[in-house]
């Protein structure tokens, strides 16, 4: 069958994409088709041969392509259709692959962005990382006194008595300071709480560094127990050099306690 097709393909190759000359080609194509039909009826299945002889009007189904019915009987246009079909299939495959790739990329973006944030430190701290060496070497800026006030809040479902033990404290940037909160569990059951904090004004919050505190970890209070909760912090000395902080003399540190439920994992701060 390949040999029969060769003269037809030769015509196609000569004519190329210039289908305007199809008229000249068509009569040769019809002749070839008539020849081919006879060939099919001879070598193909007896049924197709019978069908042709009886003339049911149906077009022959090409062997090896079940369910695929080319729209024309002209072998050149049929070849073109096959070509188009093949191209459509490849395009469809590429498009489907791109869609799947996009979906996968959107899922992969979350851990990848997290990795990027961890390496470059963006999206979390706006100031360069603080090692313990920095604390050791920092010099207090004695002429800039800042008042730090303390606020304590409790979520409605948590029945602790939570309050600061000092209303305010006067610190200077570069000096480490200690402050205390007190929490009491007046109920008869042990309660686990977890806290977060907030610093107002927001821009000053980036200079507020906590060395150690009691937030972001579950704290368990036994029934009728009262504990002191310290906060050990300092204000970065670069605070004094920031022109936007010239008018900031009051910083408010606010802690809020929530009840921790069993099996409930809070997200790591810094990725919100």
């Amino acid at each position, binding site marked *: 069958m390949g040999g029969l097709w060769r003269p037809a393909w030769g015509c196609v190759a000569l004519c190329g994409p210039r289908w305007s000359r199809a008229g000249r080609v068509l009569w040769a194509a019809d002749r070839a088709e008539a020849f081919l039909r006879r060939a099919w009826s001879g070598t193909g299945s007896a049924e197709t041969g019978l069908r042709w002889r009886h003339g049911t009007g149906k077009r022959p189904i090409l062997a090896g392509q079940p369910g695929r019915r080319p729209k024309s009987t002209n072998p050149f246009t049929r070849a073109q259709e096959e070509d188009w079909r093949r191209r459509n299939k490849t395009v469809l495959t590429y498009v489907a692959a791109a869609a799947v790739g996009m979906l996968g990329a959107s899922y992969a973006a979350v851990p990848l962005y997290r990795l990027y944030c961890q390496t470059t430190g963006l999206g979390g701290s706006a100031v360069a990382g603080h090692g313990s060496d920095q*604390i050791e070497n920092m010099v207090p800026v004695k002429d800039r006194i800042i008042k730090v006030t303390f606020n304590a809040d409790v979520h409605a479902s948590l029945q602790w008595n939570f309050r600061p033990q000092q*209303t305010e*404290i*006067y610190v200077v940037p570069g000096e480490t300071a200690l402050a205390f909160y007190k929490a009491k569990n007046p109920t008869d059951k042990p309660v686990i709480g977890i806290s977060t904090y*907030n610093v107002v004004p*927001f821009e000053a919050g980036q200079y507020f560094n906590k060395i150690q*505190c*009691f937030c972001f970890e579950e704290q368990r209070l036994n029934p009728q127990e009262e504990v002191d909760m310290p906060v050990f912090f300092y204000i970065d000395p670069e605070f004094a050099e920031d022109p936007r902080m010239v008018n900031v003399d009051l910083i408010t540190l606010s802690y809020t306690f929530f009840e921790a439920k069993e099996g409930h994992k809070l997200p790591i*701060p810094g990725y919100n």
Partner: protein
Amino acid sequence: MSTAMNFGNKSFQPRPPDKGSFPLDHFGECRSFKDKFMRCLRENRFENAACRLESREYLRCRMDRRLMAQEPLEKLGFGDLEDGKAEAQRSAE
């Protein structure tokens, strides 16, 4: 945590503490040091600079009772106090 939905303004992003969380002092082992510190604060009109010795003692108590990771006090910003105490002793003698 900022609850406002305005994305134009800067929102506050809480950061975890550098050295983690203090274990709770369930048995009140360092309560006396804390009381000394609070008394000092009240007497000095809540100035932190005046009470740094007491806060250092409180942290030292925590470290001794294993309620805080052992760390040289210079790394916690009390380096000047160490020198100051040595100087004061030398000048007193």
